[in-house]
């Protein structure tokens, strides 16, 4: 049991096919449960009902960053060891990450309107997310622009590496540029928890739900990419014959 076994697409297809129904089931239970729980929490004394936006905003923001990190790791595995499924997984993850970034930005804007009195503020956190979205778009555009699949995987991998460094750099540069309006991290492990358990348990459930949703979609999309690759290979063989 190591990831190198799954560099073989056939093996990957078999295992992922077996795991997928369980993942779909877990997502179908966890995500609606978390969302309904989040929807029915009591109002916050300060923010009123807007606190309900948190159950979409925080998990999607978390996933937006984590998906980029996952793409970075997958690209590294491809670049160093030529793990084909890894490259395809990085490609499959990008649109999910982009949608998560958009969800985080939109919910943030809608939430900012009643609480800060503005839709958009050039705050470091908001700005970094906008830049992250640009990186996702560039990454996806580069993938779809290059025809040779191996070159595309190589070039997007290199772009992901450089982009990660610069996304990180932009975040700190933005802090330097403008002190923020956004609050600090919501989840803290320090004692004297900043968020009441009335909100934190549904929030954790939502985060788990979003994570499961990501893994499920990632597997489906990776399987789609493998099938596309195989179809193209078979067609090319026919052309030659």
């Amino acid at each position: 049991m190591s990831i190198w076994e799954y560099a073989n697409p056939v093996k990957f297809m078999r295992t992922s096919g077996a795991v997928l129904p369980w993942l779909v089931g877990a997502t179908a239970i966890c995500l609606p449960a978390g969302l309904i729980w989040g929807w029915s929490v009591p109002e916050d004394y300060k923010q009123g009902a807007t606190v309900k936006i948190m159950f979409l905003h925080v998990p999607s923001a978390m996933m937006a960053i984590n998906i980029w990190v996952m793409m970075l790791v997958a690209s590294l595995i491809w670049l160093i060891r030529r793990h084909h499924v890894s490259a395809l997984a990085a490609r499959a993850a990008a649109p999910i990450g982009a949608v998560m970034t958009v969800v985080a930005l939109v919910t943030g804007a809608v939430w900012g309107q009643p609480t800060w009195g503005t839709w958009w503020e050039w705050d470091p956190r908001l700005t970094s997310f906008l830049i992250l979205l640009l990186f996702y778009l560039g990454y996806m555009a580069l993938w779809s622009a290059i025809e040779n699949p191996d070159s595309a995987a190589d070039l997007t991998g290199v772009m992901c590496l450089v982009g990660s460094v610069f996304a990180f750099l932009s975040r700190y540069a933005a802090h330097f540029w403008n002190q923020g309006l956004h609050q600090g991290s919501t989840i803290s492990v320090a004692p004297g928890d900043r968020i009441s358990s009335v909100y934190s348990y549904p929030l954790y459930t939502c985060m788990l739900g979003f994570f499961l949703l990501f893994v499920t979609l990632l597997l489906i999309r990776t399987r789609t990419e493998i099938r596309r690759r195989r179809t193209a290979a078979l067609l090319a063989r026919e052309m030659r014959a």
Partner: protein
Amino acid sequence: MIAELGRHAAPVLAAWSISGVLIVGLIAQTLVAASRARRALEKVERRG
């Protein structure tokens, strides 16, 4: 099931509906692309 939203009904509903549309759209696109790829592969494999 309809919770009391008070004066912040509009932003909450807007945020939830926009996110819902985006995420459902992503899931739908994933499923459509998956079934299309599966059918295309089956067609090619049957022919070959």
